[in-house]
């Protein structure tokens, strides 16, 4: 029996990329899963449904729910559905992210609103809605951050939101400490997901970095799983860097050298 047996987990933005791997990992550890995606009618909806179907076929409970976490009403509706179908929530992984890829000086008001709505407000909305469903039991929350919170990446204003996120981790951890709800962050390094498709357009040569510069999705997911188990109950308000050591080194050989 897996360490998350009988627990209910929501992973925001889990139709593709890292979120998808986290959802699958938690499911394999025994959790029932809510797969969340933002856009109705597109590819991510199809992928979210396919993942839910796959998890159900493997004997887990799983549903896919559409909600743009940046919209307060949509978040409320999603949690209402979770409450109705599962009656509880034990694990919340705040993975969804959305951002324009522009220099800070080029951000229009719409870009700024998109940044703040999804990556800051959206996570707060989710926490506020999740807490009543986590009432009376230990729970685990993991925020997914990135090295952009500490280092400048080209055309990556999302980094500033990740820095805010890492601060929120400490605030929530303190506020919820008495409730036995752990809140931690995982600061992820370079991943070979859809995010690399974006990154390689703004960071020429990134795809030619040595394999050691990247961290495996499954490795990140296993750390998140650990943070969502009782074994990690005394880790509170920490942002763990999971980057295969990338950020330890100032000097990296240039691609092709």
């Amino acid at each position: 029996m897996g360490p998350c047996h009988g627990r209910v987990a929501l992973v925001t933005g889990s139709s593709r990329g890292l979120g998808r791997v986290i959802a699958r990992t938690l499911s394999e550890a025994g959790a029932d899963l809510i797969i969340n995606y933002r856009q109705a009618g597109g590819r991510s909806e199809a992928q979210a449904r396919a993942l839910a179907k796959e998890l159900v076929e493997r004997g887990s409970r799983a549903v896919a729910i559409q909600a743009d976490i940046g919209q307060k009403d949509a978040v409320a509706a999603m949690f209402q559905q979770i409450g109705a179908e599962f009656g509880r929530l034990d694990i919340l992984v705040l993975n969804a992210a959305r951002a324009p890829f522009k220099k800070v000086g080029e951000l229009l008001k719409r870009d700024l609103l998109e940044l703040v709505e999804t990556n800051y407000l959206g996570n707060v909305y989710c926490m506020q809605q999740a807490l009543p469903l986590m009432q009376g039991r230990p729970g685990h929350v993991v925020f997914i951050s990135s090295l952009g919170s500490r280092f400048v990446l080209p055309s990556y204003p999302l980094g500033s939101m990740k820095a805010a996120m890492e601060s929120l981790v400490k605030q929530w951890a303190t506020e919820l400490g008495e409730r036995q709800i752990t809140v931690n962050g995982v600061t992820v390094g370079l991943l070979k997901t859809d995010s690399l498709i974006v990154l390689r357009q703004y960071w020429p040569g990134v795809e030619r970095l040595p394999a050691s510069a990247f961290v495996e999705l499954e490795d990140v997911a296993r750390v998140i799983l650990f943070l969502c188990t009782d074994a990690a109950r005394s880790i509170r308000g920490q942002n763990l860097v999971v980057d295969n050591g990338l950020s330890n080194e100032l000097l990296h050989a240039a691609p092709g050298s």
Partner: protein
Amino acid sequence: MPEPLISQATIYRAVQTAIGEALQISEEKVTPDSSLIKDLGVESLDLIDINFRLEQDFNIVMPRKYLLEHVEELFGEGTAIDSQDRLTGAAVTIWNARLGSAGAAVRAGMSIEEVPALVTPRTLVMVVEEILATCPATCPACGKSAWTVADGRTITCGQCGASAPLQAGDDVIRQWLEDFRARGGLTSSTP
């Protein structure tokens, strides 16, 4: 106009392949006027993937920003999109002048959210064509006029082997907008 080095048909085939591979769908589902978003289910990350594939194909840099984002940056916020996220009259004038022939239609008051759905394979072909058309008459490295398309996709100098110095997609759009303003295209749209 001189015969382009790479034909529109070649570009279209590359666009079709890029979309098919990025979305893992049959290329036959892609038609010139398919809405990438509405008909093919493209999301923003997919569009970046499609653009990346075209960049590799033709050794070009596709635009990172939409036309109307450039308008807002160049001519000031509010020029193209009002405070309720609706297109202005100026946005319609600019859009029709630039993309009218590519088939997509916009109207004043339309939500900006609806605009990305207007992107079609035909739009992408036009963008690639425009970038390729920035190839100078002679090679800046050796001064010769001997461009060839060696592998069918990338323009190189037949004399010295240098890659053609093509403008980036965003620069092409900005240049077009500057020219449009210079020839009075914007002022004539002001009521």
